[in-house]
């Protein structure tokens, strides 16, 4: 089982190494889809230069990375390409192991439920067999490593790859059931890009499930565990932040990183939804709409937590997808992370309604990005509306994809408990949550 994984890793590393040496690397790293103001390599280099000069890297308005990242690259700048390749590989391996474990858990649970006769009698064909599940971890690694999005963001040396690694380790730790490591990695991820904060809920749900603690608001053990986990999380967050304070001896990085993420001052076009809105908007409304947009990202956590409290890993997937769609500076690297999870849900395939059309939409949009960018910026014959139209289509495609998966998941669960052959029409409740 390990051999194919090694093979995939080798192929992925080769592809990246070749691309680093080719003339495409410079082109890719300039693309706004790949490198956002938050994680562009150019800015890291700028921050490093400032640091070497003994100036606070945040004194300019260029650098928005966290202090730990800059110190990491302070020592590793010579091996930057290697670092990015290794982070990608680590992410893939972490996902591989995590999904392997997760599959075991799913299988056990399924067996248990069958033995308990919880499932309807005629759903044999819906049940996942070990044959099907055998290749899923490999496919996950494959999807992550050979996804053109990942390759591009690795070649562009976007630090988004590091965020992905941290999140992948967080998922691994959570699925292995280590509350401490999970909290630490979650804190690191939050520290990196703030939005993974919302992953707290699924992780907590999963750990609770693992400890067989019922999720009841009245039960004492539930609250105890929650407090424990939250305390772990907060402590590690505080430690990390203090560490960065001692590294730089100033609190500059707080406004420069988190203020930058939250108040969206840089309106460079990207694949997200923010830039066009705020470029068009009157200044005095923008505060209100920034709040609305940011709340939007965090808003889905609660309804999803209620709806998916039995399925925290799926919840995690949906949440990561939501973050990567609605965050303020999204890049294709973020998208690659949740796309890696798609094979895990391959058993939902028969319930998906328009996966074919949606994948076509996504592919077409990703190809149209550079074309319209060229027309807008270089040829001067199109304008920003063209580009934004594509951004919008791309994001709608993603949203529909996620809601399709979500809906399919709920439908499958429904059929599992109620049987495949129902006379009544059903499944309407699933429409409530997303859009």
């Amino acid at each position, binding site marked *: 089982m390990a051999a194919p994984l090694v093979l995939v890793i080798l192929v992925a590393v080769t592809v990246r190494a070749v691309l680093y040496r080719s003339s495409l690397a410079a082109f890719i790293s300039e693309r706004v889809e790949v490198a956002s103001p938050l994680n562009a390599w150019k800015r890291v280099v700028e921050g490093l230069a400032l640091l070497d000069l003994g100036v606070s890297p945040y004194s300019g308005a260029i650098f928005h990375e966290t202090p730990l990242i800059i110190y990491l690259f302070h020592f590793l700048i010579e091996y930057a390409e290697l670092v990015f390749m290794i982070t990608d590989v680590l992410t893939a391996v972490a996902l591989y192991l995590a999904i392997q474990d997760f599959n075991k858990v799913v299988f056990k649970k399924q067996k248990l439920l069958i033995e308990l006769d919880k499932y309807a009698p005629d759903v044999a064909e819906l049940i996942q067999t070990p044959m099907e599940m055998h290749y899923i971890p490999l496919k996950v690694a494959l999807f992550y490593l050979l996804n053109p999005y990942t390759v591009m963001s690795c070649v562009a040396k976007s630090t988004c790859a590091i965020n992905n690694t941290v999140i992948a380790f967080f998922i691994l730790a959570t699925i292995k059931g280590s509350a401490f490591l999970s909290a630490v990695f979650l804190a690191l991820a939050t520290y990196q890009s703030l939005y993974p904060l919302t992953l707290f809920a699924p992780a907590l749900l999963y750990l609770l499930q693992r400890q067989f603690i019922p999720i009841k608001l009245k039960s004492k053990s539930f609250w105890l565990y929650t407090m424990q986990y939250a305390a772990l999380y907060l402590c590690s967050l505080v430690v990390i932040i203090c560490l960065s304070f001692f590294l730089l001896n100033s609190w500059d990085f707080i406004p420069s990183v988190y203020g930058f993420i939250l108040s969206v001052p840089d309106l460079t076009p990207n694949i997200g939804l923010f830039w066009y809105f705020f470029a068009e908007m009157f200044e005095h409304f923008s505060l209100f709409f920034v709040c609305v947009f940011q709340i939007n990202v965090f808003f889905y956590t609660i309804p999803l937590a209620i709806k998916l409290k039995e399925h925290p890993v799926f919840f995690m997937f949906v949440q990561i997808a939501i973050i990567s769609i609605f965050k303020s500076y999204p890049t294709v690297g973020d998208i690659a992370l949740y796309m890696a999870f798609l094979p895990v849900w*391959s058993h939902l395939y028969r319930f998906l309604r328009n996966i074919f059309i949606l994948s076509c939409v996504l592919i077409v949009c990703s*190809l*149209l990005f550079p*074309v319209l960018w060229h027309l807008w910026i270089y*040829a*001067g014959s199109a304008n920003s509306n063209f580009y934004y139209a594509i951004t919008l289509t791309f994001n709608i495609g993603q949203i529909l994809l996620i809601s399709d998966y979500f809906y399919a998941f709920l439908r499958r669960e429904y059929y599992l408990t109620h049987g*495949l052959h129902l006379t009544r029409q059903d499944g309407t409740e699933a429409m409530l949550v997303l859009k």
Partner: protein
Amino acid sequence: LSYVAGLGWFLALAFPPLAPRTYMSENAMGSTMVEEQFLFGERALSYSREFAGHKKKAGGMPVAWLEKTLWNLGLEVHRQPFSRTLPFPDETRERYMVKGTNVYGILRAPRAASTEALVLSVPCSEGPHNNQAVGLMLALASYFRGQIYWAKDIIFLVNEHDLLGMEAWLEAYHDVNVTEVQSSGTLGRAGAIQAAISLELSSDVVTSFDVAVEGLNGQLPNLDLLNLFHAFCQKNGLLCTIQGKLQRSDWDSLPAYAHSLQTLLLMVLAQASGQPRGDHGLFLRYRIEAITLRGINSFRQYKYDMTTVGKTLEGMFRKLNNLLERLHQSYFFYLLPSLSRFVSIGVYMPAFGFLILVLVLKISFWAVGSGWGPFPSPWHPPPAGAAGLTVGFPQESQPGLLVLVPPLLICHATGLALYFLPVLGQRMATQHFPVSESEAVVLTVIAIYVAGMALPHNTHRVLAGGGSDRGWMALKLLALLYLAVQLGCLALLNFSLGFLLAATMVPAAAAVQPTGPKVLLAALLVLATPAVTLLLGIFLQRELVEAPAAAAEGWQLFLAAVGEGLLQHHLYGSFLFPFLALGAYPCWLLLWNVLFWK
């Protein structure tokens, strides 16, 4: 049917109702209310004679004389030497290692800080060509120098080795280096260039002016610039043509329609080739609106002297001088069935849309037919039989999808080989075969191209179970999708190229399958391959300019065009060749694969 509709729509584009009259949308250039006072046609001619003399003496561009003359006119003069080694020798123009010098003079605007500039460029070509253009430029420079109303700097540029010099100058002016031209950086700069006019004149009197609009990669200048030229030609009574075709006065007759259709087709072919049709073509890449004016001296009765030509140019420059901002009002996407009529993007896109619709319909039928598409309505639980089938599907699709990988990889590897090998392998080819270097390059291209066609027979047999029906269906689906996406993107960048490729490739792509009359389909597919399209395009073009080519000559032209395409890519970054090698050709190979699946 949709295909026919698309072609029909395209043919109808030349009809008057679909092609409205052009009009000026930029306010600052609204009316032709400037009074031209240029009277120095004679002086232009004397300059040109002098220039011709010095050019002959120097055996190339008389740099020192030009500098002195421009300096005497009171301009700020700079020179810019450059050199460039071509990837392989260019046989039609006989150059390999190019060294040259651009000379330019800047007329500083008396009425504004140097923030904006206009360019009048004249290529200095070998032989007796273009002397008059230099003369006229010098005369205009001396006249412009005396005027007080200039608000933009005017740059008078004489560039050597036409496009190469132009590229070197533009790169140095904008301080970038996209191609591998070595040049000393330019010393003097004026402001941001707003518009440029490139002038080619080879006779003392002209009968008409031909205007060339198509730039690199089929980029077009803003329609307003063209309108401006047209307006001044009308004002001064000059005849002007586009694509060498005069506009006809009667609009509703059949011959007039045929005539404008010819013009339109010529424009489409020229745009599709992606070659700049004049020195202006490189300006467009830097977002500078530019056109080339070519003086034609034919056997018509009415001749115009230098004074009239000079007046026209003066008028245009004064209008451009009035511009308040970049030309942005009018159209950037258009086709011209004649100089006074245009077809805008909204009108011509449906033609392309219909062609693509064929692919989209085909894809969706295919997707539904082969079970890739939407599953039974979500509101009804799927019936048991269908469910059994769909559950069985994943296992079945597993080898199906894997089978697709080798053909895909092989097709793209062939494309890559086609892209890289010709230039890399030229040395080896010249050692082993009795051919010159440029011939070697062209022949390698063709050899790899044809070799690629032989490959697919063997690819799928490597894998067991490759011959299944689902395999080729999936492959065809993929190829169709790939083609549709490519053509869609392409049509946005270069409509003509996209349209031509769509018109040839779509029917073949839609029809191809491993069953049925194989020979017929193979012939159809071969006809649709991009190389054959190129060949046909060349014949069509010759037909339209009323100089039909014989087969042998066509072949020569074809070889020349391939070489030219390669050079254009390496010299100026034209994307036609890489697109064909890396995009269209692998896609076509996929279809070829489908045909020989069994």
